[in-house]
C-alpha cells in the first residue's frame, strides 16, 4: 500500500500527469467521498428514526431511566425492588453480568490450565482424555451447551423437599445450590483488619526481599512467610477472640429453603456452560504457550543447575506468559460477551434485564440498544487498554 514514488533520473522534466491521475489528489477525493457517504448515511438513518418516532408518537429520550420500573429481578447485588427506577435495574443487571463473568473467568482459567497441561502430559491416556474434552466442547455451540446444562441436567435435580444434603450444611435441589452463609459477629472486624495488615506486610516483605537479593544475592522464603502473614495472622486472632464468626444454615420453610447463600440454577448453568466452553479454548492457548518456549531455554536452565521448580518459575512461565496472556485476555472478553446468552436460560444478566425487560416495558428500542452496546464497548475498550499496557510491560527487552 506504499505510495507510488516517482523516481526519475535527475534533470528530466517530469511530464505533469492530469490532476485526476495524481495519487494524492485521488486519495483526497476517495476520502471525501467516503466521508460524504458516511455523513449522508448517518443523516439518513437519524432522519428516518426521528421521523418514524415522531409520526408514530413513540416516546424517545432517556427520561425513562428515572421512572419506576415496576418489575422484580430474582438476583441482585444492590438493593432493588419493583419500586426502584429503570436506571437502577440497569446497574443491577450490569453487576450480575460482571459477577458471572468474574466467577466464570476464575473457573475457566483453572480448568483451562489443567486441561492445557494435561494435553502435554507424557501420559498417553491423560493427554488423550484432555484432547477428547477439548475437541468435543469446542465444536458444539455454547448456547446449546447452556440449554443442555439448564434444561437437561439441572432440571433433573430433586424438588426442594427431597433436596440432596451436602456435607457442611448445604443443600442441592432444582431451585439451586444453598450454602451456609457466614455471619460476622462483633469482633470479627478485627480479623478483617488483621487480614489487610497481613497483605500490606507481605507486599512490604516482597519489596525488601527483592532489594536484598539484588544487593547480596541471598534469597528469602517470601512465599511461605507471606502465607503465614496473610492466613496465620488473622487465623490466630480469630481463635484468640473466640471465633467471632457463625454460620447461617439454609432451612426448608414454606415453599423454599430460606437463609444461607443461594446460587440459582440459572447462575449455575451459565457458570458451568461458560467456564467449560471457554476453558477448552484456554487449554489450547496454554498448550501453544508452553510449546512456544524453545527447548533450548529449558536445557539452558538445566545446565545452570536450576531445580525443576526454579526452571518452571524463572524460565518457562515468564516466557510462556508472554505468549499466553494476550489471547487469554481476549478469551476473558469473549466469556464476558458470551454471558449475554443468559437471556435464553433466564439468568438476570445485563442483556436479559436491560435489553430484554426494560426494552419491552418502555418500548424505547433505540436508546436501550445504544446503551447496551455502549456498555460492552466500554468493557472491551478497558480490556484492550489493559492489554496494551501489559504488552508494553512484558515486551522483550532486547539487549
Amino acid at each position, binding site marked *: *500500500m*506504499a505510495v507510488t514514488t516517482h523516481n526519475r533520473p535527475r534533470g528530466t522534466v517530469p511530464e505533469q500527469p492530469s490532476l485526476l491521475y495524481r495519487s494524492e489528489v485521488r486519495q483526497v477525493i476517495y476520502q471525501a467521498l*467516503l466521508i460524504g457517504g458516511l455523513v449522508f448515511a448517518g443523516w439518513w438513518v437519524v432522519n428516518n428514526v426521528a421521523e*418514524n418516532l415522531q409520526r408514530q408518537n413513540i416516546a424517545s429520550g432517556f427520561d425513562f431511566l428515572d421512572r419506576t420500573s415496576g418489575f422484580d429481578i430474582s438476583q441482585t447485588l444492590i438493593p432493588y425492588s419493583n419500586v426502584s427506577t429503570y436506571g437502577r435495574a440497569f446497574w443491577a443487571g450490569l453487576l450480575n453480568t460482571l459477577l458471572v463473568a468474574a466467577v466464570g473467568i476464575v473457573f475457566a482459567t483453572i480448568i483451562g490450565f489443567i486441561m492445557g497441561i494435561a494435553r502435554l502430559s507424557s501420559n498417553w491416556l491423560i493427554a488423550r482424555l484432555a484432547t477428547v474434552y477439548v475437541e468435543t466442547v469446542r465444536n458444539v455451540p455454547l448456547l446449546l451447551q447452556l440449554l443442555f446444562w439448564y434444561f437437561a441436567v439441572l432440571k433433573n435435580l430433586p424438588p426442594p423437599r427431597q433436596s440432596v444434603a451436602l456435607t457442611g450444611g448445604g443443600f442441592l435441589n432444582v431451585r439451586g445450590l444453598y450454602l451456609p452463609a457466614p455471619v460476622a459477629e462483633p469482633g470479627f472486624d478485627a480479623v478483617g483488619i488483621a487480614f489487610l495488615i497481613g497483605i500490606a506486610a507481605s507486599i512490604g516483605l516482597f519489596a525488601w526481599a527483592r532489594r536484598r537479593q539484588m544487593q547480596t544475592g541471598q534469597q528469602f522464603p517470601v512465599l511461605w512467610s507471606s502465607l503465614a502473614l496473610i492466613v496465620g495472622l488473622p487465623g490466630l486472632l480469630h481463635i484468640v477472640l473466640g471465633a467471632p464468626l457463625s454460620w447461617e444454615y439454609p432451612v426448608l420453610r414454606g415453599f423454599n429453603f430460606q437463609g444461607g447463600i443461594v446460587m440459582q440454577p440459572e447462575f449455575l448453568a451459565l457458570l458451568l456452560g461458560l467456564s467449560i466452553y471457554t476453558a477448552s479454548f484456554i487449554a489450547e492457548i496454554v498448550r501453544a504457550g508452553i510449546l512456544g518456549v524453545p527447548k533450548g531455554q529449558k536445557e539452558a536452565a538445566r545446565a545452570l543447575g536450576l531445580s525443576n521448580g526454579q526452571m518452571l518459575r524463572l524460565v518457562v512461565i515468564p516466557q510462556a506468559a508472554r505468549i499466553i496472556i494476550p489471547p487469554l485476555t481476549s478469551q476473558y472478553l469473549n466469556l464476558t460477551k458470551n454471558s449475554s446468552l443468559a437471556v435464553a436460560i433466564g439468568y438476570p444478566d445485563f442483556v436479559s434485564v436491560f435489553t430484554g425487560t426494560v426494552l419491552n416495558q418502555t418500548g424505547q428500542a433505540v436508546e436501550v*440498544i445504544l446503551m447496551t452496546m455502549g456498555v460492552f464497548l466500554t468493557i472491551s475498550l478497558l480490556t484492550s487498554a489493559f492489554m496494551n499496557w501489559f504488552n508494553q510491560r512484558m515486551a522483550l527487552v532486547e539487549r
Partner: protein
Amino acid sequence: MSDTAAEVSLAKMRPPPHSTTGPAAWMRENLFSTWSNTLLTLIGLYVAYLAISGAVSWAFLNATWTGADGSACTRGSAGACWPFVQAKFSQFMYGRYPEAERWRVDLTYILALAGLVPLMMPWVRGKLYLSIYMLAIFPVLAFLLLYGGVGLEVVTTELWGGLLVTLVVASVGIAGAFPIGILLALGRRSNMPIVRWVSVGFIEFVRGVPLITVLFMASVMLPLFLPDGWTIDKLVRALIMVALFSAAYLAEVIRGGLQAIPRGQYEAADALGLRYPQKMGLIILPQALKLVIPGIVNTFIGLFKDTSLVLIIGLFDLLGIVQQNLTDSNWFSPSTAMTGYVFAGLVFWIFCFGMSRYSMFVERRLAAGERR
C-alpha cells in the same frame, strides 16, 4: 554331548533385556513410567470408564428405540429417547418447509456439494470455473430453488427452519462477510487516514459487542432506520447482521495474511507499474488469502456455531426447532430434552469437527509447500 553343553550355556545366560518395542514397552513408557504416572493412568482409566460406560448405556443399552409417543420413553430406564428424533427428524432438517416442496432443498444441497467438494480438494483442476459456479451461478439457483419464483411456488422464509436455516445463515453469512472483510482489511492497512479510521472503528466496534445485541438490533432497531413503508424480511435482516458481524472478525484474519506478505512483493508490484486494484487483486491478496485459509475456516466454524443464536430472535434454526419441539406434550418424557440436545449437538459437532480437520489438513499442506 553337544546338547548338554548347550543347556549349560543357556542356563548361564542372563534374561533378555526388556523389549524396547511392542505394546508392553509402549505401555511402560507412556502409561506406567513412574509411580505418579501410574496413579494418573489409573485415575484416567476410571474417568474414561465412567464416561464411556455412561455414554454407551445412555445411548444404546438403556435407550428406547421404538415408540409412537413419549410414553414409550417414560417407562423403565433413563436412556435416550430415539423415537423422538425419528418422529421429528424431517422437522429438524427442514422446519415447516412444505413437504411437497422439500425436494427443492435437497436439490440445493446436492448442487452445493457438487461445487464445494471438488473445490475443497487441492488436486482437482479447473478451480476457476468451480469458483465462478459457486460464487455466481449457485447463489442464484439456490435462491430460486429455496424461495421460489419462475414457476416454482414461493415458500416464504417464516416457513424455513431447522438445519436448512442453520446452513443458509452460515453460508450466506460467510459469503457476505468475505468481500466486506477484504475491504475492511485493506482499509485498515490503507495510507489514507480517514479510510483507516473508519475501518478500525467499524472492526473494533463490532468485535466489542456480543452477537446477540447485534441480532436484537436487527430485530427491533433496524426497522426504525428505514423510511416509512420500507421493510426487510426478518431472515434477511438477520443475514445482513451476521454477515457484517463476521466481516469484522474475517477482516482481522485477512489483515494477518496481508502483514505476512513480504514487503518485496508490494515493491515488485509497484515496480511493475501495477495500479492499486491490480496490485492487490493479482499479487497480494491471492497470496495472503492462501496463507490464512485455516484462519478463515476457523472464523467460519465460529460463525456456524453462532448461527444458533438466531433462535433468541424467534427464527427456528436447528437448535431453535429442537427447543420448540421439546414442549410437544405428546413427547413429554424425562429424557426427551437430553435426547434432543444431544442430537443437535452431534449434528453441530460433525460439521464443526469436520471443518476443523479440513483446516488442519490445509495448514499441513501449506506448511509442506513452505518447506520446499
